[in-house]
């Protein structure tokens, strides 16, 4: 059975040594899962992809001590350098010639190596704000306004953010990633147009919140039926809106906190802890639950990003989140 914050697994009931857990379980797993090309696949042994590599670079960098830089993280950084497309974006899988949502986690990882990566980072950020989703076009919105599909869902057709793949619609998760990363973008790169786009995307996230708080992929209400929120998009949306102070933000944070006892997977448990810690609602039980969950789970259905998020969730410093906050030292 699953361990939950309400009923932690017996093996973790007495608490864990977080440092020991990270050093002896999480970091060796990540280092062992790295491919020869420096990247990581979604699961150990699979071809390297940008997104898992970006999360692993952040996780390993988080636990690099002082001037000692984790060699695996540096090799991962090298993979990200090599896979950036000429237009500044990153593809979701090798061979794709178009950029995708993976550009945001890649940029986030590059923030950790800002001194070496400034040019690549600038080009990535530039691509991010200059590449609109398919639903940003005036023609699309005009047609949408006229068609019956508007009555299917309650969300505004006038708001847009970022899409998973180029030329498609805006969704919660890629929009949240972009807002998080652009928060730290150099001012010289963000024109008035970019600031306007950020503002519209923030409104889009608020508009897409589920009626009871929290977010799913981006369908809060279909045919009059309320959508169920999910942990993963909720945490990223909360982190993207952390400065908003809106009632929607509080309602969604309340949902995340209330839901923490229902979480049944490593990825969602890790992100729940990340979200609650970052937003001032820490629950000490989550640390034990996460460690127990890591040990107990059928690890083959758990992916590398989930392990990287678990590692990041165990950090007390949370430098990887500070990387995206204006004015914070990297």
């Amino acid at each position, binding site marked *: 059975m*699953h361990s939950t914050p309400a009923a932690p697994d017996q093996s973790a009931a007495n608490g864990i040594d977080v440092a020991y857990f990270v050093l002896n379980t999480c970091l060796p797993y990540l280092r062992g899962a790295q491919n020869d090309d420096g990247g990581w*696949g*979604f*699961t150990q042994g*699979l*071809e390297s*992809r940008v*997104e898992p590599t970006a999360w692993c670079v952040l996780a390993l960098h988080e636990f690099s001590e002082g001037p000692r830089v984790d060699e695996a993280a540096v090799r991962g950084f090298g993979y990200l350098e090599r896979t950036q497309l000429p237009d500044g974006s990153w593809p*979701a*899988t090798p*061979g*794709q010639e178009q950029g*995708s*949502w993976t550009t945001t986690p890649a940029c986030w990882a590059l923030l950790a190596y800002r001194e070496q990566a400034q040019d690549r980072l600038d080009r990535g950020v530039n691509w991010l704000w200059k590449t609109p989703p*398919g639903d940003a076009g005036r023609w699309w919105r005009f047609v949408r306004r006229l068609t*019956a599909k508007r*009555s*299917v869902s*309650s969300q505004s057709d006038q708001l847009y953010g970022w*899409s*998973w*793949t180029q*030329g*498609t*619609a805006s*969704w919660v*998760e*890629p929009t949240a990633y972009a807002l998080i990363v652009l928060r730290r973008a150099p001012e010289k790169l963000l024109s008035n147009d970019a600031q306007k786009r950020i503002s519209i995307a923030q409104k889009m996230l608020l508009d897409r919140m589920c009626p009871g708080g929290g977010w*799913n*992929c981006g*369908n809060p*209400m*279909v*045919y*009059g*039926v309320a*959508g*169920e929120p*999910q*942990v*993963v998009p909720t945490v990223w949306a909360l982190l993207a809106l952390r400065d908003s102070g809106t009632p929607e933000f509080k309602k969604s944070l309340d949902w995340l906190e209330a839901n923490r006892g229902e*979480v*049944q*997977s*490593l*990825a*969602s448990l890790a992100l729940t802890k990340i979200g609650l810690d970052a937003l001032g609602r820490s629950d000490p039980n989550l640390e034990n639950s996460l460690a127990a969950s890591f040990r107990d*789970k*059928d*690890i*083959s*259905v*758990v*992916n590398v990003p*989930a392990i990287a998020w678990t590692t990041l969730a165990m950090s007390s410093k949370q430098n990887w989140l500070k990387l995206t906050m204006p004015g914070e030292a990297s």
Partner: protein
Amino acid sequence: MPRIAPLLSPPFSRPPSRVAIRRVRGYEADLSALLFETLREFDLPVRDKTVLLKPNLVGLDPLGMMNTHPAVIAAARETFLRMGASEVLIGDGPAMDRDTQAVLESIRLREYAGPLSRIFVDLNIDAVERVELKTRASRLKELYFPKTVRGVDFLVSLPKLKTHHWAGVTLSLKNMFGVVPGGCYGWPKNILHWAGIDRAILDINAAVRPDFAIVDGIIGMEGNGPIQGQPKPCGVIVCGDDPVAVDATCTRVMGLLPEKVKYLAHAGTLLGHIGEEKIRQMAESIESVCTPFAVLDAFRHLRHNASGPVWHVNCV
């Protein structure tokens, strides 16, 4: 060995398809025995082969309303092993939630199928290969597909009997959306919606056509499916060696007209049969199990008769 793309051919050059309808009391029944008895009639070439079962795992489902029931998945796995398959994998790529482990835990699949570490493949994050789409029904020229899907010897679509708010019905053909990897296209796989759902269904099934289909119609979903509809007890399992014919039969069981479902009508021209005269019906008749499903107003035209149930939506 890579799977060879199925030959696309018009109905007149295809042999008749076989579809079996079996009545089932509930998920507590001996589904394994029932499936073994039914599938034995098809003489399927699975001995010493690798089989991939592709259930419909849409999202978190603690109440068991929207996903293929784990009892059906486990029974199908047991059946193919009993028929001599060397390996029977279960794989899916949930479309609306990237946390596949959470989806699996919510339906308690481990309790039915045992440890998943060696048998479950998350198709969203599997290794992929680029496939040029020969049908070009949609504007997609190519798609990445999981290597597991392309590499197995025998692919089984294992959906739930449901209505669908964009496509009309979602059965074994629409279920194949789940093999398109979220790791390449996101959650949801919005590229398919932008290409046109009906047309994308054709392209995907032409590229990775299931060899067999088993539909969990014990409790289906009507109205605002595939996620937010209402459970609809129907008490059947429908299976067959032509996914188009299976879907056409299921649509008739739901009291709907397959030739009015856009993608099914098109599929009937090159992927399989939808005409009743070309489908050899086995076990129960359609009439004996027909259970009219409520549909959204937008799909009123799919019904056999105008007085059938309509899902009254409360649009805001």
